[in-house]
């Protein structure tokens, strides 16, 4: 999926503009208490204008009152626009995902007796229901999310993930899920539909972004309460000002009261609040993460602990052979040949990597009648037996038994044959183990030949990512099946804070429980069915899109890219979301200082000339001062929309430093900017007002 380069493409702006007027219905306005009060006083100003038009003299000129009314109306529209544009962008993002969802033909399998046995009939995908089974062959587009129940296929998921390399999905394992909209490249699979139409993750996400099912998150509720109470405080300020003004023998017009009130209440954050929330989910979507709720994104910002699988996350895939170490007196070429022979039939990634490293095709060795010995838990080794005349150089001079395996297993084998395990190889093995590698000893006919070194390759750049997480306050935990020694080495090298070695599936669960009992919020990523309980237990469970249906159901996010380090981005998105709310609240409240200095002298200057001293901006006239403040209050909303949509940049510099930085920018900035802005608007207004 491509990211939107521009924040405001034309078609989005047009639809958002339309929406900002649609949202003027009282029912829609009522959702936001701050803007709702602005809405009410705008209506009041409309009546005042009518009143003046019908002859009332005490409220100032009609033009001035009309101007105030228009500016207030625009303020409301701007706030609606902020929300509408965030929704429109989210929708656009979702639509590009939904395009993959258009009705595609589905080869539905009917049950016995429905028509006749095993009949496959082409139906539109919209008719598929949960539990239905369909068939997809090379060239078909998968009509619906589902789980493979039979077969294996290569699938092009680029429509969802943007990743062009095809992936393999097969029945039974942890990679049995297929997503609607992806394309089968080869082979044939039978798939059981796992969701009803309109209930897939994507559908849920689209609904969240579109606002229909959007619920306020706990933090948003708390902030709304705070903002509502600020609004009440300023309501008290304005209402009590009336008797105060009576005492000071100063008549105050309704327009002035209304303007003071609107300027003081936190309209900036009130107008942008929902846009910030929507934009946060939109950013998650742009990172190719589908969230089940806005709360999950926020929780991500609070994470303390992150559980990561070693394989595929911290290290590239599986262990790889990195070195052949022949024993003293063994020819290196011969040793490598023996290794290749032993690994010919080894389908494990380690085995394949040995062939890769050797660079010799086993076919070039031209062996015949080789009998492969598979790995068993008892022998803890695997290998090959060659008859006398196998034809290879290695087997010249009699039958050959080559074994490779764990050090102690091979040593026992060697000793059983009455040979001595060479001391230099033994030292080498110890050295490899202590460096976090895995030694594979190799023997031929009961004689030690040498050792193959397997190493985990740590992903480039992963240390920096973990360092960044640590600065955010997130502890990383590596989960691996390795022995503690190897695990420790890799943990240190990759820079994770803790590890679970020789991990069994329930270990993850126990670790999460233990952390949660200590009050911590834990996230984990997983894809297997046996990850599902842990995913459900974790506060943030991110399931791989390639994972099993069980895993995807258990988590509260799905990562379309299957990228285990995606959590780092999600954490940042969560933090950005909260920060944007916090900083804009600060900015909004700080703005009030300047607005007071504009409006309060304007209200009383005629009866208390001494208060001219408070007019530190030297605004032209009481009318222009009030109008400037209201105009500034209105236009600051659209000016801040880009910030609300992009989010305030998160820097992992520690909480106190971050607070200082944001206080400086949005607190001090929030005090200074309106002084400049109001003064500038006043200068412009002076050109029009005589």
């Amino acid at each position, binding site marked *: 999926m491509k990211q939107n380069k521009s924040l405001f493409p034309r078609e989005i702006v047009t639809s958002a503009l339309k929406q900002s007027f649609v949202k003027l219905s009282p029912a829609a306005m009522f959702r936001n208490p701050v803007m709702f009060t602005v809405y009410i006083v705008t209506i009041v100003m409309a009546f005042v204008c009518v009143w003046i038009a019908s002859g009332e003299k005490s409220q100032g000129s009609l033009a001035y009152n009309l101007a105030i009314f228009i500016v207030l109306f625009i303020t409301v529209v701007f706030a609606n626009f902020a929300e509408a544009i965030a929704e429109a962008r989210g929708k656009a993002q979702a639509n590009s995902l939904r395009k993959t969802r258009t009705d595609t033909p589905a080869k539905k399998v009917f049950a016995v007796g429905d028509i006749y046995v095993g009949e496959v009939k082409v139906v539109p995908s919209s008719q598929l229901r949960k539990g239905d089974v369909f068939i997809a062959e090379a060239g078909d587009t998968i009509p619906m999310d589902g789980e493979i129940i039979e077969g294996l296929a290569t699938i092009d998921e680029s429509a969802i993930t943007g990743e062009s390399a095809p992936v393999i999905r097969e029945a039974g394992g942890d990679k049995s899920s297929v997503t609607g909209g992806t394309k089968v490249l080869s082979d044939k699979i039978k798939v059981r539909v796992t969701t009803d139409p309109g209930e897939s993750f994507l559908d849920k996400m689209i609904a969240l972004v579109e606002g229909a099912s959007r619920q306020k998150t*706990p*933090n948003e*509720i*708390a*902030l709304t*309460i*705070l903002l*509502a*109470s*600020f609004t009440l*405080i*300023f309501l*008290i*300020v304005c209402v*009590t000002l*009336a*008797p*105060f003004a*009576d*005492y*000071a023998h100063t008549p105050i017009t309704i327009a002035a009261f209304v303007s003071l009130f609107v300027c*003081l209440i936190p309209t900036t954050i009130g107008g942008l609040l929902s846009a910030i929330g929507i934009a946060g989910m939109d950013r998650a979507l742009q990172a190719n993460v589908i969230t089940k709720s806005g709360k999950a994104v926020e929780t991500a*910002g*609070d994470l*303390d602990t992150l559980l990561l699988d070693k394989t595929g996350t911290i290290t590239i895939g599986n262990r790889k052979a990195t070195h052949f170490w022949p024993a003293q007196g063994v020819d290196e070429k011969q040793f490598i040949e023996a290794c290749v022979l032993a690994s010919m039939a080894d389908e494990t990634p380690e085995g394949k990597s040995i062939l890769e490293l050797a660079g010799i095709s086993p076919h070039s060795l031209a062996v015949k009648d080789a009998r492969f010995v598979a790995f068993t838990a008892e022998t803890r080794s695997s290998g090959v037996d060659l008859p006398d005349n196998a034809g290879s150089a290695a087997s010249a001079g009699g039958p050959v038994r080559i074994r490779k395996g764990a050090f102690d297993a091979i040593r026992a084998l060697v000793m059983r044959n009455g040979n001595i395990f060479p001391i230099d190889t033994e030292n080498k093995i110890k050295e490899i183990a202590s460096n976090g590698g895995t030694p594979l000893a190799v023997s031929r006919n009961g004689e030690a030949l040498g050792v193959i070194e397997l190493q985990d390759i740590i992903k480039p750049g992963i240390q920096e990512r973990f360092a960044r997480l640590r600065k955010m*306050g997130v*502890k990383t935990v590596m989960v691996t099946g390795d022995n503690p020694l190897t695990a420790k080495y890799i943990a240190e090298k990759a820079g994770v804070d803790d590890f679970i070695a020789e991990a069994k599936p329930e270990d993850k669960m126990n670790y999460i429980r233990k952390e949660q009992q*200590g*009050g*911590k919020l834990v996230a984990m990523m997983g894809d297997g069915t046996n990850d599902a309980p842990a995913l459900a237990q974790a506060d943030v469970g991110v399931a791989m899109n390639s994972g099993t249906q069980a895993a995807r159901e258990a988590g509260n996010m799905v990562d379309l890219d299957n990228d285990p380090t995606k959590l780092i981005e999600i954490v940042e998105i969560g*933090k*950005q979301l*909260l*920060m944007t709310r*916090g*900083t804009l*609240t*600060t900015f909004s*409240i700080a703005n*009030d*200082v300047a607005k*007071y200095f504009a409006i*309060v002298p304007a209200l*009383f200057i005629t009866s*208390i000339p*001494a*208060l*001219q*001293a*408070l007019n530190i901006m030297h605004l032209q006239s009481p009318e222009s001062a009030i109008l400037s403040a209201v105009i500034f209050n209105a236009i600051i909303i659209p000016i801040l929309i880009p910030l609300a949509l992009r989010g305030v940049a*998160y820097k992992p510099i*520690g*909480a*106190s430093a*971050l*607070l200082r930085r*944001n*206080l400086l920018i*949005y*607190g001090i900035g929030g005090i200074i900017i309106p002084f400049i802005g109001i003064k500038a608007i006043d200068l412009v207004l002076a050109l029009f007002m005589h």
Partner: protein
Amino acid sequence: MNTELFGVILTFVLSVLLAFPLGRYIARVFKGERTPLDFLNPVERAIYRFCGIDPTKKMNWKEFLKAMLTINALWFVYAFFLFLFQGRLPLNPDGNPSMSPDLSFNTAISFVVNCNLQDYSGESGGTYLTQLFVITFLQFVSAATGIACLMALFNGLKEKTTQNLGNFWALFTKTLTRVLLPIGLIIAILLAFHGTPTSFDGKDTITTLQGDTVQVSRGPAAGMIAIKHLGTNGGGWFGANSTHPLENPDYFTNILEMVAQTLIPVAMLFALGFYINKKKFAYVTFAIMTIGMLILLIPTMVSEIHGNPALARMGIAQPTGAMEGKEVRFGPAASAYWSILTTVISTGSVNAMHDSFMPLSGLMQLLAMMVNAFYGGCGVGILNYYIYIIIAVFIAGLMVGRTPEFMGHKVEAREVKIAALVTLLSAFLIKGGTALACYYFVHHPDIGWAVKPSGWLNNPGYHGFSEMLYQYTSTNANNGSGFEGLADNNVFWNVTGGLIMLLGRFLPIIGPVAIAGLLAQKKYIPESSGTLKVDSLTFGAMTFVVIIILTALSYFPPLALGPIAEYFSL
């Protein structure tokens, strides 16, 4: 002038030097560790046994508040009836009359809530019986109530997760026996030796140098004057409060009374550090509160020492500064310091008339009471500061990208709601009350109350507005000092003032204790590097900014119409 400044600095340094060990002592007392006053254990046990109290019973925040409110309600009834019938009761050598019902109502509330607003004059409006057994008694127990409620907060902060905020009765009793009574005794003795009366005799007559005879009121005053400062109460034995030569005889007693009122509020800060073992948090809070106090104090001292510019323009030299309404034996610097101490700390006693201070000083006194948390009253100052902390934590927490948390507990909608309501309350009470008074003054000047609204204000204009604003600010802050110049002994001021005192006392106690209880119940979250450090100077500054902005935004318009307009008109 330098001597005067030295006196102020000496007083402050002395207060802090005494408060520090006292804070450590208070922490030890409530931790149940050994202290020199452990010989009082049997006394406390006897009190518990007599009252049927189980001091080990744990209380959650609701039970705690219920106990506190019940006993306070009882004290109110007791005080109300004694004031109402005091003229007919014994210990009334001067034959002073009973109080009117509205004055009894106002005065009973005033002392129950530690406000000590006095719409009467002590020497003519009270009797020795009510002065001793109602007023002095309430001065002890209202201060102990505040401290016990603060201890509930400390208990909530101390444990990782707990329902138990401590036993109100035990905390309350220990505050009296271990803190207020012993220290009060020392102060009273010092005062008595410097000339404060301690006899039960009635008025005495002296003959002045001019040969006139003057009736001088007396009474067992020293004890009350000690606790009035130690318990940050502020209500004086005599109407003139600590400007009265018998209530505050000399410069030494002036220092003593200033130290006495600063002592416990500052000591409780240090006690916080020792008790919950977060010393840095306590020191940072102390620093922030001190800075706040200094920001209010310095302009006040400067404007008082410089004198009145209007007089200066007339060519009148003012070598001793602005002396109107001040006592010659104290001078402008010590009076300015006292006026700020008594308003930041919610004591409300005066050693000079606040009505006569420069407009800028009046502004600072008003701001001090509007904030009401730079040290603040006995116990309640820190509770008020805690509300600001909750709001600061919430905004700052969002700003660092984490769900806000304070000392390991998440601050969520319910806590924010309570904190917001408490903040809202002061704005509503102060401005609502002043607005109501303005309304009657302007639109109904001739209502037949004891004093007609048109006769309320001795000074019209901005100063008159300040007088009304000051009255409600003082009642809401439970400060009790008056701007005077306001004829406030009538049904309007007595009733509205009484109600505002009541709400301004108990809601800001219930709120923080409830928040402390709610937070303490929550799961404890260990600190990580993403956690906002609440003991950092940065967070302290954040809290300070929240205090300033909230106060400025809530009160700018009325302040502009009162002291600010007066200042610019001078």
